[in-house]
């Protein structure tokens, strides 16, 4: 009962991103909940690809942490470039200077569990 | 035709004694008469095709060569003078530039290096404390490097990195260095970057753009290239 399958194309890609805001001490006009975060991502897509092009990129916010405004996003593999570049070309959120920082990108959700580059050995 | 052979008997007279006794010896008339003998000789020895053309030519009183004659080479003008240059293949065969690999030692070439340092010093008007003038740097392009201690600082072939020695010979594409281990190494110019030090100046030589015969280098106009990267 030995079985081996090789899957060469993973269906989704996962990203660990956070939203960096200028002067983080100053509060944003709204509290950035997961709904607002998702909206910010969608807005970034619409701004770059238009209403239709943006809507064709389905993004899931799998996890959101309000404390450091970080999230894990899931996107179809063929839309990864679109989503990523939309996030890169976003510089404003609610008329505040901001930037999406992409910490990790992986074709496996498991890959985001550990980041050996950032782990501090103690 | 000084020595008569069997064939050339055609053209010579029979000895007088023989002629006198011709009737006693029962010699045929045609032997005595050269033309008759000649025609029978030709019939026997020359291909019939050639004979036909010869006959036609004979009628027209033309000269025809019955044999293939290789014209003798005229002596060349150089040989006349008594000296000539070797052609490329001969020159290669002589191999007069090949430094023999066995007998080169580093020690014997140290004086060459000392000489070269002096040459460089006067060529560039070196002063340790001052930066090298721009024209002195340009003179480096045309300088003679025999006797320089070159080190391969980087190379596409990692085994060459670190090879250092006195330049014994420069060819278009290579240096021949004698190392401290008394080894004669041929290092390609094109894939290496070389360094040497001169009185407090470190000179880096990008071999990729130095692929010229040393003799041509003197008169060559160097042009800037895209990159010094290997």
């Amino acid at each position: 009962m030995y079985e081996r399958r090789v899957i060469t194309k993973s269906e989704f890609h996962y990203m660990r991103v956070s939203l960096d805001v200028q002067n983080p001490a100053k509060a944003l006009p709204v509290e950035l909940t997961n709904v607002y975060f998702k909206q910010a991502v969608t807005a970034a897509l619409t701004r770059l690809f238009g209403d239709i092009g943006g809507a064709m990129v389905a993004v899931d916010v799998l996890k959101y942490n309000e404390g450091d405004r970080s999230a894990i996003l899931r996107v179809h593999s063929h839309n990864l470039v679109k989503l990523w570049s939309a996030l890169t070309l976003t510089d404003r959120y609610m008329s505040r200077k901001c930037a999406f920082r992409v910490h990790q990108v992986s074709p496996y959700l498991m890959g985001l569990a550990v980041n050996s580059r950032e782990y501090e050995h103690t | 035709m000084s020595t008569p052979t069997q064939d050339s008997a055609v053209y010579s007279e029979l000895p007088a004694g023989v002629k006198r006794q011709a009737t006693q010896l029962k010699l045929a008339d045609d032997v005595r008469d050269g033309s008759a003998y000649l025609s029978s000789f030709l019939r026997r020895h020359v291909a019939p095709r050639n004979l036909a053309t010869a006959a036609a030519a004979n009628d027209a009183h033309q000269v025809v060569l019955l044999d293939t004659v290789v014209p003798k080479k005229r002596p060349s003008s150089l040989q006349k003078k008594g000296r000539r240059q070797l052609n490329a293949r001969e020159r290669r065969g002589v191999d007069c530039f090949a430094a023999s690999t066995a007998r080169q030692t580093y020690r014997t070439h140290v004086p060459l290096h000392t000489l070269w340092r002096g040459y460089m010093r006067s060529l560039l008007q070196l002063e340790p404390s001052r930066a090298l003038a721009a024209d002195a740097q340009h003179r480096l392009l045309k300088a003679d490097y025999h006797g320089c201690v070159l080190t391969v600082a980087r190379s596409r072939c990692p085994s060459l990195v670190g090879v250092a020695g006195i330049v014994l010979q420069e060819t278009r594409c290579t240096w021949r260095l004698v190392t401290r281990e008394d080894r004669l190494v041929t290092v390609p110019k094109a894939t290496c970057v070389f360094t040497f030090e001169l009185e407090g100046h470190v000179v880096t030589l990008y071999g990729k753009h130095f692929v010229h015969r040393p003799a041509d280098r003197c008169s060559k106009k160097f042009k800037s290239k895209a990159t010094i990267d290997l």
Partner: protein
Amino acid sequence: MAAFSDLNILHMENVSTKEKLLMAIKLGYEVVAINNYVENVLVKDDKGKSKKEPSKVVEIPAPVKVHLTERDIGDLKVKGASLKQLSRFTTVLSDPGQWRRMQEDDIQAYDLLAVQPTTEKLFHMACTAIEIDIITFNIGDKLTYYLKPAPVSKAIERGVHFEIVYSEGFHSSSRRTFIANALRIMHVTHGKNVIISSGAREAMDVRGPYDVANLGLLIGLQEPQSKDAISTNSRACVLHANTRHSVKSVISVRSSSELKAEDQWTVEACRKEASEESGDDSSESAAEEADSSFDAARPESKRRRMDGV
């Protein structure tokens, strides 16, 4: 692959350059060029007709180098990297005479030279003739000329790089032209000799290297090419600048004191010989004498020997 580099951190009067550098360090860049942008190196008089009249000399700011303390780069040190700062000078090329001005020492003191041609003729000149490292575009505005393949391939051959400044893509007004222009550049260069840089006006404008590499995919680069655009190509660009500073790209001369500790081995063989020589004084002076008589004849005699038998 070479280190991640951002060859366009704009130096501005009122914004701290240091802050931008720290952001670049934080994001993982190891080579950064601080860009001084001077609109015009020649200021013409109002009349500007008589060409013979010497034009007013424009003050060129000295290359900027930001002093970073150990504490500032501590973040980077942890990652085992170091920051290399370069200086870059950018100007708008609107007159062929500007190139003469750019050859003067105060501009040549910069590590990297970049121009932004305004017409097709000047673009042709920048690609084929003048010794610069980077051709940049006002990528947020519509290009007024057509990028011809012939000068572009000549520029690629000469090692001149084309720059795409991604911070122009931030604003919705210029984003459309940014993408259109970037695609035009990609189309004509086939992704060769393209560098992507930030052109950051503020620290928040700098994006991480992997983000920028992905942006390269958006504007039509292949996977390996897009990473090259921020690493290998930038390295080639810096090397091209070094080539410019060498003597005919064959020889470069430095003072021994500038030699880094890790490169000392490259001159060791030479030093050993020199020290042995100076140790033996008598032989040296003898050699000196021999030289003076030998000098003039030497290269000549060599040449004769080389030429033939």
